[in-house]
């Protein structure tokens, strides 16, 4: 059966306006999903951004919640977002500003070493670079209740001052407010809603995970094939390891323009500043010359000398180093990677130095320290007491022993 033809279905001759109107209507109808989706995303995003900015879970503004980090302990992957949460918390008077080499120190551990009056927040994160380290130190300098800062001084200070850790959210800590919207990500939104739900404290759930990671790293490193590779590198680069870089103190802008002003500012306020030079193995200079700098050893030594000359005599400032001891830096059994100490006894000795004063570098003893390191590195023969070997000869699986580390 066919439908009857209705005259109403026909437009009168010459009538173009309804056709135009319907074309426009078709366009709007067809694009409605697209425009709706975009509008919805925009509205949701802006709403979430408004909530995050109002709640301020990173504590970067003068308003919003004032979240606390439980026991000063931060998950290692989130510490870079929570610098201000710790730095603005009056409950903490001691801050550890380090890198992956100090990430394992828990606040309880530090308290055990430094004494009961030390309320410690560990702001160590992996792969710090001069610019982000400077932003962190700036936050601490602005903290009026701070009494003690422990910071590590590693090879990254030989880099240009503008070098930044790719993961570091500099937008949270710079003076430009137009980029703050970038903080609206899933962890931040979740934290904002946690705070709205009444949970104002941040806790650290990753200690066990981190320990497993470190232990696995140690097991992976303590392997004959790894030692063979390192021994080969040592022999290959022995003649050039002590080569001069041609640099002088004026060329270390990250030290002169970023670190020294902050240390001076803290010293002037009577804040105790302990600068710890992390213990790198002697093999570190041979292995990492490959990807850091061919004159790594020379640059490291000059950088240390410049640091000692610049701030070593300031009141309340101490600089510590332990890598002139071959039993520590020469034995790869102590390390989970050429630049990362694993041995708990050495790790404890490292932080205990801030109370005992051992291993302190001064203008007077620095030449001896420098000579010792240069000589030890240039004459280094691979040693690993864990694998039961003391020469750079080809190791074998059979030589592996279960002896404890030094």
């Amino acid at each position, binding site marked *: 059966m066919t439908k009857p033809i209705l005259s109403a279905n026909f437009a009168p001759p010459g009538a173009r306006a309804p056709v135009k109107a319907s074309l426009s209507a078709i366009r709007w109808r067809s694009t409605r999903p697209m425009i709706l989706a975009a509008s919805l995303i925009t509205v949701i995003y802006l709403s979430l951004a408004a909530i995050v900015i109002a709640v301020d879970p990173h504590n970067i503004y003068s308003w919003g919640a004032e979240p606390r980090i439980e026991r000063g302990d931060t998950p290692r992957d989130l510490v870079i977002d929570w610098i201000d949460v710790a730095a603005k918390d009056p409950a903490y008077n001691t801050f550890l500003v380090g890198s992956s080499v100090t990430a394992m120190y828990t606040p309880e551990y530090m308290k055990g070493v430094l004494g009961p009056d030390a309320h410690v927040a560990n702001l160590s994160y992996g792969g710090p670079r001069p610019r982000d380290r400077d932003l962190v130190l700036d936050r601490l300098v602005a903290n009026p209740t701070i009494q003690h800062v422990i910071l590590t001084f590693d090879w990254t200070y030989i880099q240009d001052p503008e070098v930044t850790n790719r993961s570091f959210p500099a937008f949270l800590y710079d003076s430009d407010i137009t*980029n703050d919207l970038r903080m609206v990500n899933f962890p931040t939104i979740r934290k904002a809603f946690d705070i709205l739900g009444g949970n104002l404290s941040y806790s650290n759930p990753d200690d066990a995970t981190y320990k497993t990671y470190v232990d696995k790293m140690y097991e992976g490193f303590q392997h004959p094939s790894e030692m063979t590779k390192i021994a080969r590198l040592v022999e290959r680069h022995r003649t050039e390891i002590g080569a001069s870089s041609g640099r002088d103190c004026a060329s270390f802008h990250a030290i002169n323009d970023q670190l020294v002003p902050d240390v001076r500012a803290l010293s002037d306020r009577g804040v105790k500043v302990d600068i710890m030079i992390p213990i790198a193995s002697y093999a570190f200079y041979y292995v990492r010359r490959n990807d850091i700098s061919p004159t790594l050893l020379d640059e490291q030594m000059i950088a240390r000398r410049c640091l000692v000359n610049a701030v070593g005599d300031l009141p309340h400032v101490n600089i510590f180093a332990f890598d002139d001891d071959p039993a520590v830096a020469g034995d790869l059994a102590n390390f989970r990677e050429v630049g990362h100490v694993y041995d708990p006894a050495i790790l404890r000795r490292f932080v205990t130095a801030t109370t005992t004063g051992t291993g302190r570098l001064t203008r007077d003893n620095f030449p001896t320290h420098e000579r010792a390191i240069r000589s030890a590195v240039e004459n280094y023969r691979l040693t690993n007491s864990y694998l039961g070997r003391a020469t750079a000869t080809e190791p074998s699986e059979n030589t592996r022993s279960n002896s404890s580390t030094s």
Partner: protein
Amino acid sequence: MIFTDPLFLFAFLPISLIAFYMIAYFFGKNYALAVLFISSVVFYIPYGIASAILLILALVVNFSVAAAITIIGDDNKNRRKIYLAGQAYNIISLCYFKYKIITLLFGPSAGIMVDIAGIAIPAGISFYTFQGAAFLADAYAREKNVAQFLGGLGSTKSICSAFGRYGAFVSFFPQLIIGPITYLSEFNPQIQSKRFLRLNPIDLAVGLSFISIGMFKKVVIADNLAPTVDIVFGAAHVGAEIHPLQAWIGALAYMGQLYFDFSGYSDMALGLARMFGLRYPINFFSPFKANGIIDYYRRWHMTLTRVIARFLYTPLSVAGTRYSMFNRLAPVPAHLLSLWLPMLINFQIIGLWHGALWTFCVFGLMHGFWYALETEVRATKWYKAVKKTASPIILGFIERAVFFLPLLLSLAMFRSESVSGGFHLFSQMFGTAIDARSLFNMREPVVMLTVAFSIIYLCPNSVEIMRRYRPAIMTYENKSYGPAFLRGLWRPGWVQASYISILVIASLYYVSRQPPFLYQGF
């Protein structure tokens, strides 16, 4: 601001759009274009007040010169002088602020002249200077669009209106920082059209799709390739031993990063312009699918290629040919003067346009020689005979295979932090350091590379997907390759809406760690 910044996407863009269409509805075209101009200046201010002042100064100088040479008659000798003064301003400001020529010539102790140049390189200076220079050349040649665009300049109001239009043309934010470098003949007919200023939902939908695709390319693909690139090129710079496989992965990762970074930007630029009812020239058309360097430059940064060809290569080549003819040079020197020399200069300028670095210089030399050589080979009887007899599919495959390696190596040199670092990377790629210490965990980069190169070689580009809606002005005609079944056509609907939502949400997941566009530094 950068396009992938949430502040730009969720605040600046909606506000600009609403203001533009509202003002257009109530006050008309000139005011709407003034809104575009003002919003573009606001967009640019975060790059620095000094840079913004320099932009305004460039606009004022170029507009004044263009207005003067449009009003002055051809018989007036001053017309040429004014034109040359305007172009001199463009060249000098580029050399001074971008290449820091005073510092190069006189060292860092040349006093205040160095101090002024010491400001950071103004963002987009290469792009807006080239666009301004092209506009001046059009004005001098009395291109018909210029007179129509400037209109009568008899009163203060008309001069202000013309300046607003000119400001919108040169500084329109979708193309201000990284192009495309647009000719007035592409912009003016659109703003003269009756359809301009009418809010067309298709424009919004096409624009949104381009923006979401572009953002995904940049934030999800390019930025996730970047860490591998930084590690490998950093290691190459200090002369590190690199495992050959990792050296190749690093070089390939940079290829992918540069591709998706620039492609992502180009898509976003087209989409943003389209939301304001404007079509811009296409700047990027699947360049890695090219069958040689000649084809490559018809697909990569196409608007720069055509500007350089128009203002540099063609005049040089014509001058070389004339010189050879007048002096009856032998075929070889004549050929060198009319093809090789102009070509080498052309590519040297393209290389140095990216910045005053030796790596760009070597990159320019590599591409100059390669382009000239390919031109010669394609002109030989042998090649023509092969082309006639061989299967186009096989020939195309071979040409692309031959094209890939030199492109990879030249882009690796382009990215290298020094020329020695570039050559060191080459030595590691073809070296035997299989016992070198691993620089990175391979799994993620290899997955990212597989995804990236699958998209590059198998998928149609955004312009092809959106071709039903004429998304861009075609700068060059290019062939499309890739499996036919993947060449679907986009049309607005729920499926596509879900699609772009996924792309945007995936991008927003990564956006909090995003670095700026690579081409922003050029």
